[in-house]
């Protein structure tokens, strides 16, 4: 090899490298197909409707490819995945599925595209107001509501009818009904009221619902924590009482959604607090309680407020680092559109965020309970909408759990949680 040839080879190699670098930095106009990356948790159900929805978007936008990428399985892992990738400023995805409790946090962190200016003025009107509230932070909208959850009281309609009872409007009534039905049934394996008392996010949801029924809050508008400490302690004492008196089984303190859903689904309980997804499973062909289950609003307290279910669900946000924000917004809009939500509601056990769909004839035929769900969804209340929600939740979880298992008096659990939150929130505010 002559020196000249070597030099030329080296130069062309260098040039190629420079060209490649230029391409990476996006210095040249985009050529070839655009790829959008959509991060989402796989949807369980008879059929995952998403691949088809993504193909439909591609068909409507020639030259655009959409890659659906699965998120880790648990909510904790998903959050950690987002934080690491978004804080690193190279997200590698355009549209992301967000648990509604993360939206204010991610907005505050500057990771989300402000959708306010991208939306038509009336575009959010068809969505439930509580889902829009959960996507709003600092007066701006940061995500589009995608699917919806609200806490419900499931009950064994057959058992209540047998004893001539109507679904309870207060917890006091519920306790009385459990006593009557268990006294009549004489079945030691029949539990009264199942809910979620394991130390995790679900516990916070259950305790918040008990707070609200008792006129207590976790966070006031002015940012004060536990603005009604005595009422909050009383609500915790009531929940502890459910376990102590055997209305709820001892293992409630280890129960999550699935553990309690299975026990109720096997016919071992009269009442259950859970999300709407459970209804489809109770009505499945091999279900032991098929045709015997109905749902009602969560009970209130005899001398308190009416019962309100906590809302939950997922939103779609657009990463601020997306290189195709307009297309990404279009994708989020497409996936939250009425046809897409109808397809998701039919194919999977997820409830829509658009109110009109709850009266949609095609959906109601498959899910006869949907019109009833609409009223409960309207009354639902979001968990505190704050960027510090995870800090709040992670701090109160062990304290609520301590009050439930009886190792701490409720007043002290609340005082301890408050002291810790004062220190942590003092650092961020």
């Amino acid at each position, binding site marked *: 090899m002559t020196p000249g040839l070597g030099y030329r080879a080296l130069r062309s190699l260098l040039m190629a490298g420079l060209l490649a670098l230029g391409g990476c930095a996006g210095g040249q106009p985009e050529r070839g197909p655009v790829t959008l990356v959509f991060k989402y948790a796989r949807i369980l159900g008879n059929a995952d409707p998403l691949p088809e929805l993504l193909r439909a978007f591609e068909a409507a936008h020639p030259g655009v490819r959409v890659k659906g990428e699965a998120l880790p399985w648990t909510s*904790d892992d998903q*959050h*950690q995945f987002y*934080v690491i990738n978004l*804080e690193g400023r190279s997200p590698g995805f355009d549209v992301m599925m967000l648990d509604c409790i993360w939206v204010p*946090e991610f907005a*505050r*962190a500057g*990771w989300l595209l402000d959708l306010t200016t991208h939306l038509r003025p009336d575009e959010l009107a068809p969505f439930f107001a509580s889902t829009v509230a959960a996507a709003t932070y600092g007066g701006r909208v940061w995500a589009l509501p995608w699917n919806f959850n609200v806490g419900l009281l499931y009950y064994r309609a057959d058992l209540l009818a047998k004893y001539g009872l109507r679904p309870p409007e207060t917890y006091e009534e519920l306790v009385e009904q459990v006593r009557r039905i268990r006294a009549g049934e004489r079945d030691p394996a029949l539990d009264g009221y199942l809910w979620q*008392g*394991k*130390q*995790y996010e679900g516990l916070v949801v259950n305790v918040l619902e008990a707070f609200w029924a008792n006129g207590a809050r976790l966070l006031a508008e002015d940012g004060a924590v536990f603005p009604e400490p005595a009422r909050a302690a009383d609500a915790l004492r009531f929940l502890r009482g459910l376990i102590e008196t055997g209305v709820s*089984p*001892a*293992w*409630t*303190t*280890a*129960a999550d959604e699935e*553990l309690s859903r*299975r*026990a109720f689904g096997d016919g*071992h309980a009269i009442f259950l607090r859970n999300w709407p997804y459970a209804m489809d499973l109770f009505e499945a062909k091999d279900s032991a309680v098929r045709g015997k289950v109905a749902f009602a609003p969560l009970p209130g307290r005899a001398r308190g407020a009416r019962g309100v279910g906590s809302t939950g669900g997922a939103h779609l946000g657009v990463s601020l680092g997306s290189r195709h924000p307009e297309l990404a917004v279009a994708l989020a809009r497409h996936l939250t559109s009425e046809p897409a939500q109808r397809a998701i509601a039919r194919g999977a056990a997820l409830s829509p965020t658009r109110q009109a769909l709850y009266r949609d004839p095609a959906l109601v035929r498959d899910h006869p309970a949907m019109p009833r769900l609409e009223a409960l969804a309207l009354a639902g209340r979001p968990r505190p909408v704050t*960027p510090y929600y*995870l*800090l709040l939740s*992670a*701090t109160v*979880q*062990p304290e609520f*759990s*301590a009050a*439930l*298992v009886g*190792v*701490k008096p409720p007043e002290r659990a609340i005082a*301890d949680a408050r002291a*810790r939150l004062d*220190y*942590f929130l003092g*650092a*961020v505010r």
Partner: protein
Amino acid sequence: MTRRQAGDRRRALLCVAPTVLALGALTIYPGVWVLWLSLQHRIPIFSVSRFAGLENYAFLAVDSRFWSAAHTTAVFTLGSVALEVTLGVTAALAIHTVRRGRRLALSLLLLAWAMPAVVAAKLFEWLYHPAAGLINVALGRYSINWLGDPAAALPAVILADVWRTMPFVAILCYARLLAIPADVYEAAQVDGAGRLATLTRITLPLLGRILLLAALFRTLDALRAFDIMFVLTGGGPAGTTETLTVYAYRALFQTLQLGFGSALSVVVFLLVMAVAWAYLKILRTGAVAA
């Protein structure tokens, strides 16, 4: 120093340089950085970054959740290591004594050890299931609220950990037993030593050093235990199974309090170092015969 010695010395320095650099980059630099972080209020996603001095440590000193986690870590470590060593030795002696089924027993032991902690935790989640779990079905009407009772949860977690890691101790011990020459036992027999005397005077003392090593490894692992309780209980109920590492994880990765979480990590680090140092001191003084 002769020229040759100086040359040797240079070459030696050159040879260890990569190691020193790698250690410096991977251990010392992050270590110092964590120490520095622990002296700050730092939550990057909310652009919080200001010097806090020893505030995080002062808060830890009065933080009931921290002391509860420290207590849980201590009980978990002592409980699981003691059980693992006792059961491990017993298993090794049993395998060493029996002739038939030795290979099967070893494979089964290895199977448990080879299982990832998260898988083992999921397995035990089903075993501990309040209604359908194998254990409660066997106990019948005396069934226990394994993961929901503050008195039962930590023992349940320890049990799961012991099941998974006891084989490690057993296999180390078994290897040592194989290395004890047969003539030692023959001599003991000639001297008229009974079975018990052979065990307490010969076998156990000969196992001493390897046991100490196994206990060192297991203790350091147990002090940093995370996955088994994270999956089984998430730290509950009432935080009774929350170890220092789980607490640090929640602060660092869930609530993203890098300053406070780093302070927690520094405490865990000091704890692990102190325990490791104590073990190494025992090993070095040769308090246990090899």
